[in-house]
């Protein structure tokens, strides 16, 4: 047994207890376990009926802002074609119809009640047949609406795309810095990094929308941990800001845990980089499906800042929350850049990423640097997840979808460099949006543009824009 192993055995008991406690709390509190699947507050479920069918009718305007559609009538028919009930969507687009029993129903949207300019994306799916409702559950149904007719705002398309692209690029950059630094310091291509992004977004959702909307939540029946949606009754603890802070902290903790209990052990056992890469893929699949299991497949939205009217500038319009995301991300990324440039820890990180052996022989504690890279990288990924959830939605595979874009950004900038990740991600974000500028370019192919650019850059300059030749081996 080597010295380092002895140390880790001796120091194991305290973190173990902490880990166990954290897992216990998380598993008890997690949203969307089947018993409490419907209490996320966003769906407006009728509390009295034991079985119901419900939904939220929403669409998006040109700029991608969510709009809830009010005053649309829904009917539910049973298997024999008899009407069971009807409902009209409220101001938040929510409708719910309680049912006499579990069974198979069909749901019809009354298209004559849809406002002008809004239409069903799939008119052939109305009525929605064979909707199966299990006992004691609420069945959520989805009626996707088509794009609203183009509004007559005088935005200049390229400027608008540029602003959207910068926002996306900043979020990708925030998520990707950890990916790049982890690669630089340990050589690991971490495919599970996308799940850190999803983790942050989901923790924020849990604190903001589950506890934040719950009437009361008791801590093992001992005392009221949450009352009226507020932690110990403290005002403001049901806001997304508070939930975001919790999410960043817990993401950092998760990074530390994974380094301590998975990656450090693999390194100490001398596992090869390729088996570590395969381990990360396994973990990515595992956690992705844990998220799906707990959270279910649909997209969710944060309550705060959900609907905002756009602020119009001369050439583009942007919602205040997106403006906030842009400036906040810039501030965070400048902070990260300064920390890497000026602080001892930041310099040590860059030194280890640059040349591990040289850093170690000049007295830098490499393991400690790697630990902090994991903590900071995961916390940034979690923050990126919260911001991405704010601007798009929260769902179980959001991080995995972002992962390929992160890889594109990091490869473009140069794998293993911090500034390269930043720079490359920004370019990828802008590229994805701007590529849709020509009207003939199909919007659903825009990610293909970024991935194709990734393949191309490897042909022309495989070390990336800021990378050095010898890295590609």
């Amino acid at each position: 047994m080597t010295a380092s192993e002895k140390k880790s055995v001796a120091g194991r008991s305290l973190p173990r207890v902490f880990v166990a406690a954290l897992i216990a709390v998380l598993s008890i509190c997690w949203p969307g376990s089947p018993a409490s699947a419907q209490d996320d507050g966003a769906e407006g479920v009728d509390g009295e009926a034991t079985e119901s069918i419900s939904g939220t009718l929403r669409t998006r305007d040109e700029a991608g802002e969510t709009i809830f559609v009010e005053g649309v009538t829904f009917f539910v028919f049973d298997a024999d074609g008899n009407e069971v009930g009807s409902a009209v969507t409220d101001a938040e687009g929510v409708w719910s119809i309680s049912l006499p029993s579990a069974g198979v129903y069909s749901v019809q949207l009354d298209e004559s009640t849809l406002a002008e300019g809004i239409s069903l994306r799939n008119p052939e799916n109305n009525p929605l047949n064979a909707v199966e409702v299990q006992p004691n559950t609420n069945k959520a149904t989805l009626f996707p609406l088509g794009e609203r007719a183009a509004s007559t705002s005088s935005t200049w398309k390229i400027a608008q795309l540029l602003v959207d692209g910068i926002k996306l690029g900043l979020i990708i950059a925030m998520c990707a810095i950890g990916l790049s630094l982890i690669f630089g310091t340990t050589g690991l291509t971490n495919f599970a990094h996308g799940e850190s992004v999803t983790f942050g977004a989901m923790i924020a959702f849990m604190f903001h929308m589950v506890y934040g909307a719950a009437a009361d939540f008791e801590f093992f029946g001992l005392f009221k941990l949450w009352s009226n949606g507020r932690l110990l009754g403290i005002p403001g603890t049901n806001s997304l800001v508070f939930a975001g802070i919790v999410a960043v902290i817990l993401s950092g903790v998760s990074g530390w845990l994974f380094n301590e209990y998975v990656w450090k052990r693999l390194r100490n056992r001398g596992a090869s980089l390729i088996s570590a890469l395969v381990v990360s893929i396994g973990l990515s699949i595992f956690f992705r499906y844990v998220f799906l299991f707990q959270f279910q497949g649909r997209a969710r939205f944060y309550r705060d800042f959900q609907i905002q009217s756009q602020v119009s500038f001369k050439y583009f319009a942007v919602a205040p929350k997106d403006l906030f995301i842009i400036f906040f991300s810039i501030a965070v990324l400048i902070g990260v850049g300064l920390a890497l440039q000026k602080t001892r820890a930041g310099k040590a990180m860059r030194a280890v990423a640059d040349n591990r052996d040289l850093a170690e022989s000049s007295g830098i504690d490499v393991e400690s640097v790697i630990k902090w890279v994991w903590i900071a990288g995961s916390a940034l990924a979690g923050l990126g997840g919260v911001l991405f959830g704010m601007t798009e939605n929260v769902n179980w595979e959001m991080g995995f979808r972002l992962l390929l874009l992160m890889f594109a950004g990091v490869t473009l900038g140069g794998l293993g460099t911090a500034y390269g990740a930043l720079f490359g991600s920004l370019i990828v974000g802008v590229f994805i949006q701007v590529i849709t500028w020509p009207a003939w370019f199909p919007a659903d192919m825009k990610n293909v543009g970024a991935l194709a650019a990734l393949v191309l850059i490897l042909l022309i300059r495989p070390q990336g824009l800021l990378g050095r030749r010898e890295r590609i081996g």
Partner: protein
Amino acid sequence: MDFGALLDISWGSVLDNTLRGLIGEQFIYFALAAIGLNLHFGYTGLLNFGQAAFMAAGAYGLAIITQTVSPLINDDEGIFRLGISDGWMFVIGVFFAVIVFPVVLAFLMGIPTLRLRADYLAIVTIAVAEIIRIFLRSPRWDWLTGSSDGLGGFSGTFYDLSPFDPGGRYLFGLFIGNQMFLVIVGWVVLAISVLLCWLIIRSPWGRVLKAIREDEDAVRALGKNAYSYKMQALVLGGIFGAMGGMIRAIGFSLAQPDNFITDVTFFVWVALILGGAGKVFAPVIGASILYGVLNFTDVFLRQSVAKGVVSENILSGTQVGQVRFMLIGLGLALLAAFRPQGIFGNKEEMALDDR
């Protein structure tokens, strides 16, 4: 938990499904794809995470030729009126599925990446597989690919050859007629593939591949063109993957883009690593065990939920499928961490090692 209800589970159907997993169609598709991946990774050391794209090439090669191209060149309204029979179109489709599409794809994938280090190859192959899937999904090329609904209805020609009674049950009632035919054809293809793979690896050409895996620089120093050998390996492995995808498409009589998501590639990896990369029989045994275990857990859990062994509050019917994926993920991580050589692999020769 009501363990008394364990007796109510119909163990016969659990057993049937487990056996079907061990030797049935799914095992065949994945075993073929894993044989291809074994050539890529096990023998040449290429980290190909885009095997699903090769499977899609096989499925769509057949589907596009028989469903999109055939009406264009044969029908009265078409561009030409060649009048080629459905049977011959199916043969042409198989040729495109097994040779043309995967070879083109291998070149597209290999040219930018094969000179790069292993982990770059992993990223790029995943990216290419996603590009292809998004392309297949896009409504813009609906006339060619059928977008997200895919193309279907091309298996009739194949099943017409079946000597089995479509309504009958065969092999202790495990398979119905058409399935039995598909499975037998699949076994034959699989057997030929394993034999071929064995012969290839014993040949001087195969020894060069293994040498590339061990030390590419040494191979270059001996005057071999490592890049060209890697490309040949990528093409050959891709052809096996395409055969798997094609048989899968015939089995479902459908080629659909979402059957070829990234997770499918990961399934193939689990099958390969489970058996042990770098062994001829490993992909076959790995795929068999993988699908045996998956089908067992799937049916067992579903029955447990239905009969009340596990309360619906803990696990609902739709969540059973998700548990399968969790098992795969966890299994892959644990295998790679604790037994990278798999069941049959040799730790000295092949332990998912650096190269």
